[in-house]
């Protein structure tokens, strides 16, 4: 598989700022705020949904399969914790003895935002969501590889999002760090999306620079893929 496009949003800002942020090597908890994105129409406010939609839409905007039928493109969305804002809002309602707002009915599962994307572009491939630990990126890529091989797809969009700042997040992050023996959730909101097509990688995987082991493994792996793609796209644009 090769990365056709990528887009990443986080404390670095948008994608063009990612290589500089990675090169600076400061991955501590005190980071600039992740850019706030427009709220997704039809959904209760959730940074997870906004970041996922934005990064995936940026990848799809530059992809033109042609034809008037939905494109044979599948999506894999990976997240350790999922849509915390939607979950927390519903949980608070339940804890208070109240009925959650109706939008949280379909926001109860992350696949809904993928359905929203499949309508917007439109897309007909499988919609997969994954949760996991340190090997989340590898899992998502292997799912994408299987989908490209077995389902006859033109491309697979693989996304990674962690977002939502409430007191559940640090509590869950601590518990999961104990379970996995390493941190698996960043302190800040971020999303990375990769549009993958069949074919050999455009560039060889670079050696991982020192200092990146401070990053939780899923984020580090996804950012590495996005960085590679950014470098390739910049090289392509300048030649």
């Amino acid at each position: 598989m090769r990365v056709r496009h990528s887009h990443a949003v986080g404390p670095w800002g948008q994608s063009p700022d990612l290589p500089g942020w990675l090169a600076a090597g400061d991955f501590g908890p005190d980071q600039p705020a992740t850019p706030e994105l427009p709220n997704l129409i039809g959904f209760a406010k959730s940074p997870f949904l906004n970041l996922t939609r934005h990064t995936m839409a940026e990848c799809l905007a530059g992809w033109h399969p042609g034809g008037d039928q939905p494109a044979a493109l599948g999506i894999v969305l990976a997240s350790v914790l999922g849509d915390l804002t939607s979950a927390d809002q519903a949980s608070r309602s339940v804890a208070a003895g109240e009925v959650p707002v109706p939008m949280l009915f379909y926001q109860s599962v992350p696949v809904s935002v993928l359905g929203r994307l499949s309508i917007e572009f439109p897309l007909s491939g499988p919609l997969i969501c994954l949760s996991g630990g340190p090997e989340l990126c590898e899992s998502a890529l292997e799912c994408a590889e299987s989908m490209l091989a077995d389902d006859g797809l033109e491309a697979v969009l693989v996304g990674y999002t962690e977002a939502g700042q409430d007191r559940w997040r640090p509590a869950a992050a601590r518990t999961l760090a104990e379970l996995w023996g390493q941190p698996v959730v960043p302190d800040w909101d971020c999303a990375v999306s990769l549009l993958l097509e069949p074919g050999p990688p455009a560039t060889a995987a670079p050696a991982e620079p020192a200092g990146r082991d401070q990053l939780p493994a899923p984020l580090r792996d996804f950012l590495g893929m996005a960085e590679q793609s950014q470098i390739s796209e910049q090289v392509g644009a300048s030649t």
Partner: protein
Amino acid sequence: MTGPPQRPRVAVTGFGVFSCFGWGAEALRRSVFEGTPGFRPVGRFDPAPYRVDRAAHAEQNPTLAEALATAAAEALRQAGLADPHRAAVLLGTQGDWTGLTGFWRHGGPAPATAVAGAHAPLLAAALGIEEGRRRVFNNGCVASAAALGHGLALLADHREDLVLAGGGYLVEEEFYAKFDSGRAFTPEPVMRPFSRDRAGLLLGDGVAVLALEREADALARGVQPLAILAAVGMAADSYHVCRPHPSGAGLSRAIGQALARSGVPAAEIGYVNAHGTATKANDSAETAALRAVFGDRLPPVSSTKSCTGHTLEGSGALEAVLSLIALRDGRLPPTAGFTEPDPDCPDDCVPNEPRDQPLRAVLSSSSAFGGANAALILAAA
């Protein structure tokens, strides 16, 4: 013929379940194949804030992790693989949200089991399985079907030799509250899939884990496969976030893919275990999808959710087990609670009574929010 010749066939060699009827596949089989619904007043939490107070939950109250571990251990025992060193563990679940409710009500540490992705490594650890992929799918009601499909791919590609695939949901307050808010529940005491007066769904307990391996490997160690997992197809509707495409566009694509991949001719499918949620929109869209694929030769279609309730992420795996039992026993489980036909629903939904019918291959369909669809084909070994 079952399966493309160039890829090895994948067999189901064991399964274990927990449902509203309690522990084990026999309790499930006895009730579902007699058309006995498992709905009862909700006893696990106070349903007073909600419009509806019924669900298909068991008398027992295991945690999701306990139910998954027991079901998986049974699947391994049945497969004659009591103590595997390596196996992929692939689950469809959103996690155990009783932990999230407890956190917001009472504080304290966050339990790992509230996070979906923790369940695969926890299950592997509970079974003493040291190596293999651990993956959790949380794409709503197609999650455990997706886990089964991924397991099939891993085995067919020789990336794993043994896969435990399945998933689960146990009735709890978080999803109950959200489905109540979305007005998905029927006000009636039972679900009535495919009936003209159907009015919605009720939630249910459903945990199922299947042991999968290549057929040749199973035969080589002297184990007779229970069935062949011939194919899983998945496709999106590209239509609406929480309503199916009225023509069943995505589901018919998923079924078409599964048929093409399996090599099973459509005429050989003798029974369809439908998603059948008893909502107006789902049942008619699903019927349209099936009619698009099978034309006027639509086989009998039933919804076992009429007995088990909607088991959300567990439904794909639980209904795969029910489909396998139908295939094994040559007996169709009925659609319970059926009242009167709807022209937009299957002509033969096996109303209220089981039926004996020899089967060579069966289809199980699942749909989820976002317009995600899955179709799974099981064939006789």
